[in-house]
């Protein structure tokens, strides 16, 4: 996880006060803090002039937003059509067993978040897993386990 550098005030200052900027602000806060805390959600609402109910519905509708802290490492297993055909499911299950969390969850020690994605656009290398910023192409259970063990 990168250290929080930008303050919430400086993120807010980058956007004009208009409800149109609600999603952009949520994205920036998510990127900077890894999640959107209730305090930040309220500050964003005040800034853009949107009711908290709207911000809440937006934050829970879109998948990129998390209202709970996410893990230090993000593991995204692609379950696009090609990855599905080539065994993506086995890979998610391997992660679930190894990390002890279900897809979409974060380990208790906040080290790992396991997610599935619907297509990373790297279908020629299916199945693909993304570990933080790195791609693991043509993945299998062994190469995935090896990659995960390097994180610990």
């Amino acid at each position: 996880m990168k250290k929080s550098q930008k303050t919430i005030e400086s993120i807010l200052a980058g956007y004009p006060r208009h409800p149109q900027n609600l999603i952009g602000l949520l994205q920036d806060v998510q990127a900077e803090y890894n999640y959107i805390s209730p305090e930040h959600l309220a500050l964003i609402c005040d800034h853009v002039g949107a009711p908290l109910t709207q911000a809440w519905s937006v934050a829970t509708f879109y998948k990129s937003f998390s209202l709970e802290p996410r893990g230090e490492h993000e593991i995204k297993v692609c379950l696009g059509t090609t990855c599905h055909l080539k065994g993506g499911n086995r890979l998610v299950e391997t992660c679930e067993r190894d990390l002890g969390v279900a897809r979409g969850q974060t380990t208790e020690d906040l080290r790992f978040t396991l997610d599935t994605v619907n297509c990373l656009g790297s279908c020629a290398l299916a199945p693909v897993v993304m570990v933080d910023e790195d791609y693991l192409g043509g993945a299998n259970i062994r190469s995935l386990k090896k990659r995960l063990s390097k994180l610990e």
Partner: protein
Amino acid sequence: MAKLKSVVELEAYRQDLQSGQDPHWPVVRVCLGPGCLAQGADKVARAFKTAIKSKRLKVEVKPLVKETGCQGFCSQGTLVTLSPSNLFYVQVKPEDVPEIVDVTLGRGEVLERLLYSDNGARYRSAGEIPFYKRQQKIILKNVGLIDPLDLHDALRAGAYQSLAKALSGMSAKEIIQTITISGLRGRGGGGFPTGYKWRRALETTQDNPGEVYIVGNGDEGDPGAFMDRAIMEGDPHTVLEGMAIGAYALGARQGYIYVRAEYPFAIRTLNLAIEQARRLGLLGKNILGAGFDFDIQINRGAGAFVCGEETALLASIEGRVGEPVMRPPFPVERGLWDRPTVINNVETWANVPHIIDKGAKWYANLGVANSTGTKIFSLVGKVKNSGLVEVPMGITLGGIVEEIGGGVPGQDRFKAVQTGGPSGGIIPYEFKEMPTDELKLDKVGLQPRGFLPVEFKDLPVDFDSLVRVGSIMGSGGMIVMDDHDCVVDVARYFLRFLQEESCGKCLPCRLGLKGMKEFLDRFSKGQGAREDIDALESLGKALMDGSLCGLGRTAPNPVLTSIRYFKDEYLAHIVDHKCPAGVCRDLITYSINPETCNGCGLCVKNCPEACISGKKKKAHAIDAAACIRCGACQDVCPVDAVRVA
């Protein structure tokens, strides 16, 4: 860099750039497309830069290293093209770079082992390879050739000359007329005539003066499709130019490009391109001194498939939840902030500069009647050569899958092609005899027998032919399936996907998808009755009739086509309790072939249920009663001894 104040200044500037570069100057083009990037292309590019900088390379001029967009042949990544020799190296690893630099760049010799070879033939340049030979690159012409982060490189290749042409003498009416005559249809899936859309927006604005908006849809959500990503990352200016031309014709001052959150690199590339275009006066106030103001803003998606639907996308730009609304009114009548809005897919926008440049007639002659031009497909799945291909509309399915794709690898038999993602269908590769009662399915596009080609591999790939067989063009994903892929499982996969992505606003989609998936869940367990197939079909048709937006209305396509063409496979699940492809977990058993097993023990180590046993270096066995059929043993077995039955 001062702003260019006229078309004449732009052309002079371009000439300066072109004459400043010697065509014989050696260039190394490293593909940084999504496929190559996932194989470490960034490290290859870095290795080239370091090796070329080193003093050991004794050449007069040091080659230029360009990081380009997708060069297409993803399964052979990392791809490296060298000019002026035109050599094409495949599967380049960072370790190969010092040798390429020494041998090829330094001494001018070819490294045979890095050339693409197939069936004993070696190919020196990309153009000779069958994968590229049948393609016709128009939209992707500069993708893979130019440095997408450098406007100058794009200008050298001709960027913004169509905008200049439009500004220096074409009237709004003429531009719209040109687009209409060209026959361009929306590349996002629906295939709606683009010229008609533009004309409607213009008419609405004339009746109701005020702002009109331009939107580029780059929310490429279909799994298995990445052509929009390749365009945005490989030649961003062609999208900006297309939108600027549209804006000029329609009198728009503000444009938006909506890019899905999963494409951070596309977002970065587009933002940089916009910045560079503004600095040169190609976007912003008084573009090229023509008194035309237009600017573009990038909106990042936030991970919702439904936002690819135009009304949901517009809601998202306005900062709201991405829920579709009823059409009409269409966005061209009432779109962003209730003003007329023209929304086109980014691939559609990328077509516009080419049509303006070469003319409507030229474009209309490409492809076939009613489906003009070229289309980009991502050819993936169980196919030998996978990657991004651009072909003229109307090419046959076999032409794409066999001639370009090289067929199915190994001994497996080609089974089906899935087009159009979750909204499309599963088309069998070989013609299937269909019982006559199947022909009643007119609703989903099935026409009388006479319309169907004898072999599906002769099916022309164009908007209307695909609809005729129950599928759609969609954004252009083409996923090849072989005998080891189960159509019941694939149909169930798409329903899971769509059920998760349905926004839940309208009942038919929200509950209908859930109901459809429950049928398939049972089928995949070998449960259900023959009548359930009919019930599933009628539920699917109810969704098509009753859903609010395209997501729900097209959602049943994968299921309905799979039933139509592969009913025997459904019956195998339901009646015989078997999954012929060996996929559906409840209907298969794993066993170890004692003749091939070498007793290495890897399966024992990786079995989560500890249900494999055997002595070291002796054949192992699986306890079928305890096995959860996770497939881990098959995945790790180095000698392919694990069988599925």
